[in-house]
C-alpha cells in the first residue's frame, strides 16, 4: 500500500515535493544567494565550456594566442623598460622578471574586462530566461583560466631556459594568489558589468582602467622601486601585493611582502563583496535595460 502511494507521488513530482517560488518586488539588498548559484553549477560549467570551446574552435592560432600575447608584450617591455630605460629587475633577467608579472596581470585584466562586457553581451539571455545573474560575469572570469594555464607553461619554459628555480612556498602560494585574483577580478568585473549595462560609456572607460592599473602595479618595475613611505598607499591596489608575491615566490627575488599582501587581500575581498552585492542590488534592472 505504502509503496503504491510512493510511486504515485514520485510520478507527479520527480525529485520530491514541488518547490515554491515567490515572485515579488526586489529586496533593497539581496544577499549573494550562494545556494542558488550552487544549484545552477551545471549551467555555469556549460557556459564556461562554451566560451572556451568557441574561443579555441574558431581562431586560427587557437591556444597560440595565449602564448603570443604575453611573449610579444614581454619582448617589447624588455626592449623598452629593460634595455632602454634600464629599470632594475631584482637580479634576474628582465624578460623573465616582467613575464612573471605579466602572466597574472594579463589574466586579471582580461578577466575583469571580459566580465565587465559579459552582461551586455548576454542581453539575449537575460531578457529571455531566468538563472542567477551572477553566473554571467563569473563565467568570464573562469573561462580565462585556460589561457592563464597555457601562459604559465610559457613562463615555466622561460624559467628553465634561464635556470631560475621557484621557491617551495610557490606550491601553496600560487593557488592562494590565484584565488585572491579570481575574487578581486569578480568584484571589479561585477562593479563594471552592473554599471555598463546601465551606462554604455563604460566600454570606453575599461581599456583606460586596464592601462592605468598596469602602471600602478609592479609589472614593469619591482616593488622595491616604490619609496617606503608610499608603500601602504601603493598596497591599496590589490594587484600590487598579488603580482609582487607571485614574482617573489616563483623567481626568488626577495622576501614575500607580507604587509603589502595583507592590505591587498583586505582590499581585494572588499572589492569582491562590494562588487557582487552591488551587482545583486541592481540585478532587477538588468532585463529591463538590456
Amino acid at each position: 500500500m505504502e509503496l503504491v502511494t510512493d510511486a504515485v507521488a514520485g510520478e507527479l513530482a520527480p525529485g520530491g515535493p514541488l518547490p515554491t517560488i515567490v515572485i515579488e518586488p526586489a529586496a533593497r539588498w539581496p544577499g549573494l544567494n550562494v545556494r542558488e548559484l550552487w544549484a545552477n553549477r551545471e549551467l555555469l560549467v556549460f557556459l564556461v565550456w562554451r566560451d572556451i570551446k568557441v574561443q579555441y574552435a574558431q581562431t586560427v592560432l587557437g591556444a597560440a594566442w595565449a602564448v603570443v600575447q604575453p611573449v610579444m608584450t614581454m619582448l617589447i617591455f624588455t626592449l623598452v623598460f629593460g634595455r632602454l630605460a634600464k629599470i632594475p629587475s631584482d637580479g634576474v633577467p628582465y624578460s623573465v622578471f616582467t613575464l612573471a608579472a605579466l602572466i597574472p596581470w594579463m589574466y586579471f585584466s582580461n578577466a575583469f574586462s571580459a566580465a565587465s562586457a559579459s552582461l551586455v553581451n548576454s542581453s539575449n539571455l537575460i531578457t529571455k530566461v531566468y538563472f542567477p545573474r551572477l553566473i554571467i560575469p563569473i563565467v568570464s572570469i573562469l573561462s580565462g583560466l585556460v589561457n592563464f594555464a597555457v601562459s604559465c607553461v610559457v613562463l615555466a619554459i622561460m624559467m628553465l631556459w634561464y635556470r631560475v628555480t621557484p621557491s617551495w612556498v610557490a606550491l601553496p602560494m600560487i593557488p592562494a594568489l590565484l584565488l585572491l585574483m579570481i575574487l578581486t577580478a569578480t568584484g571589479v568585473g561585477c562593479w563594471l558589468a552592473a554599471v555598463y549595462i546601465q551606462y554604455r560609456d563604460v566600454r570606453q572607460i575599461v581599456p583606460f582602467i586596464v592601462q592605468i592599473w598596469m602602471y600602478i602595479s609592479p609589472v614593469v618595475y619591482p616593488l622595491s622601486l616604490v619609496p617606503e613611505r608610499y608603500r601602504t598607499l601603493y598596497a591599496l591596489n590589490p594587484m600590487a601585493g598579488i603580482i609582487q608575491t607571485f614574482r617573489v615566490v616563483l623567481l626568488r627575488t626577495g622576501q614575500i611582502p607580507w604587509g603589502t599582501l595583507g592590505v591587498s587581500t583586505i582590499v581585494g575581498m572588499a572589492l569582491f563583496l562590494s562588487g557582487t552585492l552591488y551587482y545583486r542590488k541592481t540585478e532587477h534592472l538588468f532585463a529591463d535595460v538590456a
Partner: protein
Amino acid sequence: MRQLTIGARDITKKYRIGGPAQRHASLRDAITHAATAPVRGMRALMRSRDERQSAREAEEFLALRGVSFDIRQGEIVGLIGRNGAGKSTLLKILSRITEPTSGRAEVHGRLGSLLEVGTGFHPDLTGRDNVFLNGAILGMRRHEIARRFDEIVEFSGVSQFIDTPVKRYSSGMYLRLAFAVAAHLDTEILVVDEVLAVGDASFQKKCLAKMEDVGHHGRTVVFVSHNMMAVTRLCQRTILLDEGRVIADGPSHEIVGAYLRSGLGTTAEREWGDDSAAPGNDIVRLRALRIRTHTGEISEAMDIRLPVRVEMEFDVLTDGHSLVPNFHFFNEEGVCVFIAGDHDPAWEHRTRPRGRYASTAWIPGNYLSEGTIVVSAAISTMDPVAVHYFERDAVAFQVIDSLAGDSARGRFAGPIPGVVRPLLKWTTDFEPAMSTNDTLSMHP
C-alpha cells in the same frame, strides 16, 4: 479542486517612458542629473502638487495594472490581447526575468519558460553542443538532456547534421533543432510565448501536437499567442489582457470570440519596414498587407454586400522564380473559410522579374459570413512546391451585415450560423394548385 499552481495577486509593472534604458543615455547625463538635483528639487517644490503628480505620471508607463488570477495544476491557459496589452511583461514576470513593481505571485513547481526558441544557441558550436547548452540554459540537468538526447534529435529531424556547426544550418533546420530542445523541457509548468510562429506548417503542426501532449501529462501551461486557432485548440481557458488589465477570463471559445468581435484584435493594415523583420527570404519579401473597401479605402469594417480587396505588397529580389501569392481566410472559430491563390495566367506560368508587386484578391460582396475574418498571407512556388513566407494571422477585418434587407439575411434579425453567407440566385417554379372553388370563382 486541483492544486493551485500559479497564484498572482495585484501584479503591477511600471516602466519609465521610452524604456528605462533611455533614462540616462550616458554616464555624463546621470552625473549632470545628480549634480542638478538640488535645483530641480527647489523648482519642484515651487510647483503645485498636481503639476508634480502629472509630471511624474507622464514619465511612467504601466505595463500591468493589478493583474490577479489563479491557475490550477494541469490547466492550459491562453493569454491573448493586442500588442502592448501586457502579455509579454506578464510572462517575463512569471519567468522571473523581470520583477513586478508591486504585487506578488506564488509559483508551485519548476517553471520552464520558452520566450524564444534557441536562446543561447551559438553559431560556431555543433548541433549536439547546442542541444546540451540550450538545455542547460532552459534549466535542464545534464543527465536529463543526455537521457533524452536521441529523442530530441529525432524530433528535430536533423540527425545527420547533428555534428555540424549550426551556422551551416538552414534557418528551418535551426528552428527545428531549437524547438526540439524546448519541446522536451520537462518542468511542471511551462510558459510559452508565440514560439509556434516559426517553422513550416507541418513542423508547426507537430509542435502543436507536442504541446497538446504536454497538457495531458498533468503539466500546467501558460501560452501567449496571436494565433487564435491555436489558442482555441490548445487552451480550455483564456485570459484576455488589455492595457495591462485582465478584462476577461473564461472558456477559450467565448473569450476569443468576444476578443475578435470587439475589434481589439483586428488590424486592416500591416507593413514591414526593415528587411530583417519582414517575412520572406532572398527571393521574395513581404512588404505590406492591406484590407481595402471596393473603393480603395483601408478599413477594418466591411459591408457584407460589397467586395473586399485584400492586397499583398511584396518585393521580388531574385529573378527567375514563378511566384503565386495566396491568402488563407479564417473565421473567429479558427475554421478555414477558403484559400485563394493568384492563378492569373498572365503571371502563373511566367517567372517574375525583380521589383515591387502589389497583388489584390477581390472577394465578391455577399459572399462572406458576418464576423471576423483573419487573413494569413503567403507566397509559394508551385513546381516544385516551396513556401517563401507564410505570415499567419497577419491582418483581420470585420464583416458587418446591416439590417438593410438586401443582403442574404433578408429581413431576419437573429443570429445566422454558417461559414459563408452568399446571396444566392433563387429561381422558383410555380404551378398553381387546381381547386374547384378557385376554378369556380375564376370562371363564374
